[in-house]
């Protein structure tokens, strides 16, 4: 499984994301000779507990995430961030969760956009939209390097490519930048060999960040 970094757009203080930024980012990928290949889409749902009135909410996780990824559409990933747990399941687990009626999906987000080929790299640029309202919640970028599946061994080349990308994008003077957050995969019981569970954990991590950013803008 090729290594992947998942980046998210961090607007400068006082700014928000908008579709103009998304268009500029896509143009920038093409300007460094990224070849457009097709569309991609991932989905992420927040599951929240259904509690009786007398329940003590602190005894239950506030939420967990359910993630489906285009690489394995018949799989589904559940992530409990606070408890550092990621579960890989057949996508039928969604039906089981529905039938149990103990946790329900409250918010669902689509990550969708175009993918580009750039030598040994594959780049995916996508908007984050709520399924209910279609409003733009954020921008993400997947940066995949196909020849290597070791997180550690790929670190140097990924870091270098990230720098090149940031430099190319900086010429456009956009009010923000892409951020790479590196989760501690070991805490989730994951090894250094990259898997889709690593991708799910990265999505869960950037979600936290995006929520924090949205809240700070609102306040």
């Amino acid at each position, binding site marked *: 499984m090729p290594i992947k970094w998942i980046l998210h757009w961090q607007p400068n203080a006082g700014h928000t994301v908008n579709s103009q930024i998304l268009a500029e980012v896509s143009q920038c990928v093409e300007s460094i000779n990224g070849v457009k290949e097709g569309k991609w889409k991932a989905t992420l749902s927040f599951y929240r*507990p*259904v*509690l*009786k009135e*007398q*329940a*003590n909410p602190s*005894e*239950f*996780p506030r939420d*967990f995430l359910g993630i489906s990824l285009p690489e394995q559409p018949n799989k*589904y990933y*559940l992530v*409990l961030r606070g*408890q550092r*747990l990621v*579960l*890989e*399941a*057949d*996508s*039928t*687990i969604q*039906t*089981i969760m529905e*039938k*149990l*009626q*103990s*946790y329900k999906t409250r918010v669902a987000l689509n990550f969708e956009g175009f993918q580009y080929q750039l030598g040994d790299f594959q780049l995916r640029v996508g908007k984050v939209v709520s399924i209910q309202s279609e409003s733009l919640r954020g921008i993400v970028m997947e940066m995949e390097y196909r020849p290597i599946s070791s997180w550690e061994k790929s670190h140097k080349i990924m870091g270098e490519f990230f720098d090149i990308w940031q430099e190319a994008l900086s010429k456009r003077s956009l009010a923000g930048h892409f951020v790479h957050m590196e989760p501690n995969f070991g805490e989730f*019981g994951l090894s250094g060999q990259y898997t889709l*569970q690593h991708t799910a954990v990265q999505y869960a991590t950037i979600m936290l960040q995006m929520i924090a950013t949205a809240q700070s803008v609102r306040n």
Partner: protein
Amino acid sequence: MECVVQGIIETQHVEALEILLQGLCGVHRERLRIHELCLKSGPNLGSEASEVRLLCDLEQPEPTWTVRHVGGSMRGAGADQISVLVRTMVESKVSKNVLRLFYLLGYKLDHELLRVGFAFHFQRGAQIAVTVSSVNKMLKLHATDEAVPVTPGIQLVEVTAPASAENYSEVAASVSSFCEYLAPLLHLSKPGVSTGVVPTAAAAAASLMSYGGTTIM
């Protein structure tokens, strides 16, 4: 959805049943060793109480885990007329940390079992699975090596086949007609409707064992 019937057989006749199944199915048996954990939702979780089963297949070199949810069975006049139970059943193969996940979500262990025996999977009008197993309980938590039979000398036989809302009556008919072949050895009925062992079992088993070329004591 699935169609299901169950029955019981004395352990002394299991070998004869195996010979019969081998002849009927034309496939080899698979060994079965499943650790089954039944979890129930804590008292304050969910709009109503819920139950889920985690199955750990101990026959695999690296144990594999499955989550199974068994829903309500079909009711009404139509359901009464057929001799098999039709119920919703959903399974999902999962990674090995699934027990921890359900504990964190607020589920509690209700009971656990170890099923040891064999299974046949074959196509006969439907994708039928027959499992023959002794059901064991654990004296200590998760101690599958120290499991003891719940009903010594008796084994559980289960015949299941996946079905859908469109084809369940055909699948139920296939399961019923297959069960008739087993009738001399055991009676299969809807789960919860126990009919006990059949009086012809000893004679049928003796006959099968002699045909099977196995020495009978």
